[in-house]
């Protein structure tokens, strides 16, 4: 199963509890992580994800952009998105 499919198959709870049904692994994410993870799963661009964070949390765009990139990097480390995966700016 490809890693992009793995992201699509994640069971993401409202509480931020995430279950990967393929590997049995579980994760927790905070409220901002939840927004980013769902947006990534839906194929949103980084601009759109930053917009969503601005709308939800009134965050500063520059900080949000850097943190989205850090978050994607962390997901890569867990094998949930492919090594070559990049969100479009």
């Amino acid at each position: 199963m490809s890693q992009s499919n793995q992201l699509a198959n994640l069971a993401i709870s409202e509480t931020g509890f995430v279950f990967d049904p393929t590997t049995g692994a579980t994760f927790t994410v905070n409220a901002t992580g939840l927004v980013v993870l769902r947006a990534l799963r839906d194929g949103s661009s980084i601009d759109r994800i930053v917009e969503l964070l601005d709308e939800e949390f009134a965050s500063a765009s520059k900080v949000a952009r850097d943190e989205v990139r850090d978050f994607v990097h962390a997901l890569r480390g867990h094998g949930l998105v492919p090594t070559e995966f990049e969100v479009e700016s």
Partner: protein
Amino acid sequence: MRAKTIAVTGMNATDNPAPGVGVMRSLREGALPGEQHIGLAYDALDPGIYAKDLVSDVFLLPYPSSSLEVYLARLEYIHERVGIDVIIPTLDAELPAFISSQAELRSMGIGTFLPTREQLDLRSKANLADLGRRAGLDVPEAAVVTSVHELARVHERVPYPFFVKGVFYGAKLVTCLDEAIAAFHHVVAQWGVPVIVQAAVAGEELNVIGLGDGEGGLLGAVPMKKLVITDKGKGWAGITIKDPELLAVAERFVKASRWRGPFEVEVIRDRRGRYQLLEINPRLPAWVHLATAAGVNLPRAIAELALGGRPKAMRDYDVGKMFVRISIDQIASIEDMERIVMAGEVRKPRLAGAA
């Protein structure tokens, strides 16, 4: 039609549990009115003996290795007392005895659903590489050794680190010859020769429980990932996962061997996502009740097959169903222990809804 009586072995339920208690719990689900569940134990302190809500009656058995004649005579005695319709053996070491006694059991009116002796040998650790070739499954590099002399040169075929395994049980990871020799002697003292050397593969260990129909078909299977592993390598918690490739491994095994009966496949998913077959256990695993809770009740299907029925294949199961074991102090009476020690049996008042 008379309500059936199903006997189950393997009532040990310590930190290295036998499957009997899990099988009993599965049989209780969907049991027909009047159905009796008989525990067959090898030790007076097997915890399942004292699980009053699960077991109707309990009888002690002699070890099958002592004498097959004595073993069968004991089963005949129990059959006279409670009228057994089906026996579900759950331990590796007793399978050869049950397989070779099927005709005698059948003549008593006792049904079983077991692999053939050839199938049992085919999936043994010593023959796993051949089975892998036959079924098109990857198997870690392995070698069978019978002496320290052979062991000293085995790294030419299977590089360190590797596992030193007994024919029936036990695996020790070793990184050099000194460790390998110590592990070899330990395994030989417990299980004799041959000893299996198997390459260590880095990755995630996954398990599948399943049931083959004896004609190459898979009647049901559930994959599981262990979440907590004890120091004995046993799963103390686990979760059902959705992994079609892992189910395909079980299907290929069943098709190639025409496996008849329950089994557990142990695989490693290596870092490149390939599945490597580590072991096939020829019986239900101790976590069998997780599969039942996920919607695939294999013990009930085995009982139906042993009675000549043809249960439907069970394809759907709940993903994300978990088990978390608990260590609990059961309160028992000295009278029950006295009965099991002195008479080798405990007959209990019939369970509600089962009498």
